[in-house]
């Protein structure tokens, strides 16, 4: 088993506290992404897991064995963890095959077995013909596959990935995301993927931990992060979300509620235990707003401040609400044309009531 239990982790560098009480329970074979802006502590969290950093508090257990804790620190070379580094960290003086074989050689695997396993792994990532090449002669995508092959050869039960797509150009990313998914399916390893790109995190992971300033804000499946954010910070961060004020919240059962948003009644989703309250904070996304014909009943009127062409749709920024001071964005399907200053009517199709406990940050 290689489940990971991170419990109340604290990490300081000098006076700055980089990680605050970070706790995550990751199941065996799960693909977890840690998402956050740069400097939020996600790389430090990865380095703690790998054993490059010692903890100031809390503990980490992998497969039930404590690897970092108050009294114990298993060095990285004893943890059996694979890491795909941001720039892959391929040893430049070794060939592709030697890079993949190094860990097996250190482990004392006899040469025939080693060669067989390396050849097999290189075939799996379709690098067999390049086995004799040096890393410098490979393209970015090929280097990435060598780094993955290194983890495959070691049969690492836990693989950590540190922003592995950050250095690659856009069109390569899609192919490589697929590569990770295949790697995950093939190896069944527990994957821990660090990124600042939410599209990557939401597309790849079973569960995503959203991190900010050294704290985990929410740890949930991608759909839940998008549709049921636990706090205003997550609501604002994921999927170009906006947070609006709602008044006179009345749950109606079945996880639904009524409230007044931007001066108009709206039907919203809410948590099962939600109680009536005078004020609430509502999470919406651009897709929750629709353009409706002028004069529609209960429509929200808005003023276009900017409309920009994005190919399949028109990205539109508006000011809405009774006082015309609430900025909103929405995507209007092409063909459409809007002018700056034009008055339009909008309908709010969906929204999520952010639970009260987290509403006050």
């Amino acid at each position, binding site marked *: 088993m290689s489940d990971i239990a991170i419990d109340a982790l604290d990490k300081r560098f000098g006076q700055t506290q980089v990680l605050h009480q970070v706790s995550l329970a990751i199941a065996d074979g799960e693909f977890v992404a840690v998402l956050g802006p740069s400097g939020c502590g996600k790389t430090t969290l990865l380095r703690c897991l790998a054993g490059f950093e010692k903890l100031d508090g809390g503990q980490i257990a992998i497969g039930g064995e404590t690897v970092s804790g108050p009294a114990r620190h298993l060095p990285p*070379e004893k943890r059996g963890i694979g890491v795909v580094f941001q720039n892959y960290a391929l040893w430049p003086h070794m060939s592709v095959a030697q890079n993949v074989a190094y860990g097996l050689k250190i482990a004392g695997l006899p040469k025939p077995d080693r060669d067989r396993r390396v050849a*097999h792994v290189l075939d799996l990532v379709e690098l067999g013909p390049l086995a004799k090449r040096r890393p410098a002669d490979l393209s970015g995508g090929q280097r990435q596959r060598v780094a993955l092959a*290194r983890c495959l050869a070691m049969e690492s039960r836990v693989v950590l990935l540190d922003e592995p797509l950050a250095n690659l150009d856009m069109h390569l990313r899609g192919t490589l995301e697929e590569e990770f998914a295949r790697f995950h399916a093939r190896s069944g390893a527990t994957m821990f993927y660090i990124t600042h790109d939410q599209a990557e995190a939401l597309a790849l992971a079973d569960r995503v931990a959203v991190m900010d300033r050294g704290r985990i804000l929410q740890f949930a499946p991608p759909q839940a992060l998008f549709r049921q954010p636990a706090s205003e910070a997550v609501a604002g961060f994921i999927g170009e979300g906006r947070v609006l004020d709602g008044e006179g919240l009345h749950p109606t059962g079945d996880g639904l509620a009524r409230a007044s948003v931007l001066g108009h009644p709206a039907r919203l989703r809410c948590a099962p235990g939600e109680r009536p309250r005078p004020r609430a904070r509502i999470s919406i996304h651009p897709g929750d707003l629709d353009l409706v014909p002028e004069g529609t009943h209960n429509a929200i009127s808005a003023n276009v401040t900017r409309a920009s062409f994005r190919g399949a749709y028109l990205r539109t920024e508006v000011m809405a609400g009774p006082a015309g001071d609430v900025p909103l964005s929405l995507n209007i399907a092409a063909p459409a044309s809007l002018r700056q200053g034009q008055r339009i009517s909008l309908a709010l199709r969906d929204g999520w009531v952010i639970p009260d406990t987290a509403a006050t940050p």
Partner: protein
Amino acid sequence: MTRSAPNSPTSSGSDPLSLADNTPKRPYRALRLPSAPDGERLLLLALVLFVGVLSIVPLGRLAYAALFPQGGFDAARIAEILGGRRVAEAVVNTIWISVAATLLATVTGTLAALMTGLTDMRNRTLWVFGFVLPLMIPPQVTALAWIQAFSPASPILGPLGLSLPPGTRHPLYSMGGIIFLLGLYNAPLVFLSVRASLQRLPASLLEAARANGAGGFALTRDIVLPLIRGGVFAGAALAFVSAIGNFGIQAMLGIPARVSTLITLIYRRLSSYGPSALNDMALLALLLAGLTVCGMAVTAWLGRRGDQRVDAAQRPPRMALGRWRLPVEATAWAYLLACLVLPLSALFGTALVRGYGQPLNAETITFENFANALFHHEGIREAFATSLWLTLLTVAVLIPVAVALGYVLVWRKGWVARLLRLASELAYALPGIIIGVAMILFFLRPLPLIGTGLYGTVWVILAAYLSNYLALALRPILGGYAQIERGLDEAAQLAGAGIFARLRDIVLPSLAPSAMAAGILVFMTAINEIQTSVLLVSSRAQTIGPMIIFLEEAGSSTLAAAVGCLMVLLVLALMGLSLIVGRRLPEGVLPWRD
């Protein structure tokens, strides 16, 4: 967790499903290389022992002997020794000579760096090589070459009739002569430091000043000089440390001129009175160390808040000298002619004549001196052999130690690492003669386990070399580490490699050019070394460095010149070799490469 041995059939890797099924088959740990429970701690302990025994403890012993000779602090004794007329005179001379020489070196070195770094002067590479070359020649050889410059055998001044008639007082046998030579000798140190600063200068800052209408002179005065101030004073600090501890020049010129400095005073007292003067000389050595540290502190204070801008992407644009180009180039080459060709040609001239004082011509020319130096003179041959194996052993020990120490310094921070670095830097910065006195004190008494003392044997010299040159070996290696990506080591760690396997398989291959450069630097410095070994040589252990002084003192000037020539040739050969192996080296590792 179940783990099966990797060589069992189930995990042979031939079965395509073996990577997809969920039972872990990570190679069994018992099969891993036998390694100590914590290799890194072991390594750190070894490094602490190495630096501790070779640097910290001897220097501590020196301070103890200086201040508490009989186990107690005696202020009256200290006042009596330091207040003596001869000591006071030596202190004043030392300060005056090193400060004046530092000023000369700073002005010359900065001008040279500005000229080669910012102007469109031609043949810069060759000129830089010539300008930096004197730094690589042992100081006692430089002093000897300058002394010979005015001899009748000089191929330049001799035919011009400008040589000194025998019996007249040599102009360099004076305080001014010492300052002049020390200044010239250390100018390349300032040059290298300033050049490094210039290379980091962002081009855009200079271009902005240009756009504002600043001409070449105004640009240099208002923009360049303030920005490279840190580099100028860092170079001045190096020049000061080098001048105050330069035994070769101070002894070769100062002893005949009766200009006493601290370093020559310690040498002369110890060679006349032997170990009985040790405690008093320890006090003087401590005083010299204090002066050195003071000088470094003053220059550090003057250069404080130096601009640390780094912009390696773009070199500053070169300024056109215009109609000044020819005069500037002429001055630059005339400087090299006067400071390099004049003394070195005289040295070769003297080495080629039968007897000192003869002019060099077809009748007097002979290769007898070289033949004597190389084959017939037993003392020289043995000293050279001793120096050679001592130096090779020093390189063989120091390079692995420096690679390991560099690892700790660069990738494992902490107070132990900082202390190790400080100790090795201190042992390098302090004049070699202080290390010499410290080593005598430390090894004078019989060693506890062996029962016999190392004093007077060649092993004390080895210990002094190891202590003295660790920082020298460390510098290029730290530069090499800066180019290795940390992830390469971490990836190997995750692959299960312990510290020693990583150093061998990952670090060393990437570091090889830097390690080679470090080896050549240490070899070049140690093979010609004089400051430490001049105190430690005995009838049983002679090295080649002090041989020139002994030969010159014994009146064999022509033989001394021949030995000096051979040293210069050795240095040139090593520099050439380093240029061949050093193609892939990071910039600035080899000082003589532009």
